[in-house]
């Protein structure tokens, strides 16, 4: 066929109907862009127009995951916490109301760790006692959940025996009544065993095991979650294809999407946050569009924001440069990271600094509520700061 001629003919067409045409090619791409004509001038004047809301309907959605069993379900938590269930992108309320708000889980460690000053001032009294630490997070800082990170079990740190780590988990479960998350040390050889034993000890409480990943024996972790009725966190490292692969393996083992969260890794603001942001955004859009591999709520280790030098350093290392008050700068670093990821689709935030959490939660309450507003024009009248 004379393509040139066909294109020329089609160039002026607005619409094309093909009748009695056999297409022999394996793949035929028809690119139909008609050149728009310049618009005619409109009559000068004000006309009341109406803005049509640009609604989209998504065929897919995100699973709802419940954390924590109360006495009704055979556990000892005071209440359950829910995440997920989205039908549209986060806070697109003109389109649909998503059922649950983002949740913050405070990080607690089973041994004292190095912390930046704006964080440390809140915890220095309790760092020797994880149960007290957890209690402080809930009672004083309003933690929705608590993560107990069993980092001392790492053979290169303290090599705490599994039996002792299990005791720590039990103490935390005693000390707080919110749902909890149990984290390993990140040591791929030891974590499966630590998490198995911890899962057993927490049977009936519906905790989350953090985590199943491609660099350890994730089957043992996932199986422990299934055997003892827990949620499992599927963790990968800034690679959406790895995340899909791991999720498929886990689903293949029988893990249900109501029992799983996905965590593609959080890079700090200024040090790759955009990767986490875009992967989460892509994952959430894919889930809404129907990608069954990704229809789980998303989790973030937001505390990683403190790895940025602008967050933890007292002052700029560059001579003559100032970064401003660290007690404000650091918390903002973590809070801005959390907010950005919440907008991208993240549901659960593992955070540390109470100031950051308060800033983040204030934004969430605005983004999910309907507070009164004063006229927007007031900013120009000198009202404000």
């Amino acid at each position: 066929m004379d393509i040139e001629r066909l294109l020329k003919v089609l160039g002026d067409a607005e619409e094309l109907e093909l009748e009695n045409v056999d297409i022999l090619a394996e793949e035929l791409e028809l690119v139909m862009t008609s050149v728009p004509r310049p618009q005619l001038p409109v009559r000068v004047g004000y006309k009341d127009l109406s803005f049509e809301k640009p609604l989209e309907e998504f065929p897919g959605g995100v699973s709802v995951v419940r954390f924590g069993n109360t006495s009704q379900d055979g556990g000892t938590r005071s209440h359950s916490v829910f995440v997920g269930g989205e039908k549209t992108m986060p806070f697109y309320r003109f389109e649909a109301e998503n059922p649950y708000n983002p949740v913050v889980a405070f990080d607690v460690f089973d041994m004292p760790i190095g912390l930046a000053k704006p964080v440390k001032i809140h915890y220095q009294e309790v760092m020797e006692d994880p149960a007290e630490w957890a209690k402080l997070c809930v009672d004083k800082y309003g933690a929705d959940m608590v993560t107990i990170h069993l980092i001392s079990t790492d053979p290169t740190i303290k090599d705490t025996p599994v039996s002792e780590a299990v005791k720590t988990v039990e103490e935390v479960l005693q000390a707080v009544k919110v749902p909890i998350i149990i984290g390993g040390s990140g040591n791929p050889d030891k974590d499966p065993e630590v998490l198995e034993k911890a899962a057993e000890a927490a049977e009936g409480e519906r905790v989350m095991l953090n985590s199943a990943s491609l660099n350890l024996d994730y089957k043992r972790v996932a199986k422990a979650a299934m055997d003892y009725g827990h949620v499992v966190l599927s963790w990968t490292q800034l690679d959406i294809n790895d995340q899909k692969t791991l999720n498929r393996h886990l689903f293949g083992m029988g893990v249900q999407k109501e029992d799983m969260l996905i965590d593609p890794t959080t890079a700090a603001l200024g040090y790759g946050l955009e990767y986490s942001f875009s992967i989460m955004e892509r994952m959430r859009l894919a889930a809404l569009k129907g990608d069954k591999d990704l229809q789980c709520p998303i989790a973030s280790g937001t505390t990683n924001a403190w790895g940025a030098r602008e967050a933890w350093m007292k002052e700029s290392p560059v001579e003559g440069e100032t970064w401003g008050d660290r007690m404000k700068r650091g918390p903002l670093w973590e809070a801005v990271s959390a907010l950005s990821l919440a907008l991208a689709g993240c549901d659960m935030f593992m955070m540390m600094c109470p100031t950051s959490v308060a800033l983040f939660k204030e934004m969430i309450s605005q983004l999910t509520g309907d507070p009164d507003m004063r006229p927007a024009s007031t900013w120009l009248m000198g009202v404000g700061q």
Partner: protein
Amino acid sequence: MKRLGPLDLYRHLPKTNCGECGEKTCMAFASQIIERTVKLTDCPYLKGSHLEALIKMTSPAVRQVVFGKKSPVKIGGEDVLYRHELTYFNETAIAIDVDDRMTDDELLERVAYVTNFSHERIGQELTLQAVAIKNVSQDPAVFAECVQKVAAKTDKALIVCSFLPESLEAALSVCDDNPLLYAATKDTWEQVGGLAMKYDCPVVAFADNNLSELKSVVHALQSMGLKDIAVDPGIHPENLSATVNEFVEIRRVSMNEDDTMNCPIIGIPAACTNPMEEVMSAALMIDRFADLLIFHTTDMYAVLPVITLRQNIYTDPRRPVSVDAGLRTFGTPTKESPLLATTNFALTYYTVASDIESSGLNAYLLVFDTEGLGVEASVAGGQLDAYKAKEAIEKTQVKDVVSHKKIIIPGMAARISGELEQISGWEVLVGPRDSSGIPEFLNKRWN
């Protein structure tokens, strides 16, 4: 959604491959147009209504508006809703506000702040783009005097802000730098639009929490022949849900080829009553499509997270995540110079490299192939362990490059030091956890 490919455009080019545009072929020219590196007018054979039609066809989903003559600021011009769909083109411009009731000292201090602001971050210079001048006095003469003072002190672009057309007119009579006019409303569109026509300035349409009214104002301005229009749907620092939903709705209709509301969006975190909230609202707006922000707080603890987030979100996502692994040199190292190591995650590498460069050190840097992951992540994920580090040492034959057998690994990789020492036979020094500490570390630990 409007997303042209080179082929869509090629069909409408002369197809003679004459090369006069500077590209070898018309197809190459079409690709460069899509990449926005050349202009349609570079081809001398495109003329008249055909050219106009092609300009319209290739124009971005969100119109690009430019204000300021001396230091032009481009806002809008985006083609996608989400950055991963392609990339964003014009980063959110940031203006700092001043008002005509400020003392001269405060006014000029803030203007100087914007003018001189420069912050280097990972090889990029981050700046502020504009000064927004508020007509708090509501007095045209006072406003004009203030605008004049500001214009005399800075080459940065200006935004003149008043709901009184008389004030905007007074400002324009003393400033010929094509400032952005803020704002035309349902009641003032004709007067403000007239000023925009007369002085050839871009203009902001404003309606408070009413997108139908906003669209009507834009349409009225367009009916006068104005094209360079930005929109402010009204910022409510106490109800940012309204704000962000309106931003999303506006940006989504732009992607649906609406040719009234395809305007750049203005956000005003300066309306917040405290700096911490202001930073959070600015972050929200940068993440959700704002093209221009008016910001108030000038303390670095507040500005730094905002410009850093902007740098992140506006990074081209098509840029590779990793750099090539291997041995790099900095300065003019000798056989005795220190050997440092890091990962091939682009951000980690550039951070370390800029720290070494800025301190003027002579050193070697061994870049491990960690599959594009940072130090902490690759140690956690096993992409960096003692065996892989040893392999890199051997593969690069660094033993022939330096006379010592000492390697400094990142503090975050401390976990692998013992094993690496055992299997490689090299002395392994655990360096600082943050590469900004390298000069001090070398001072203390490297003879």
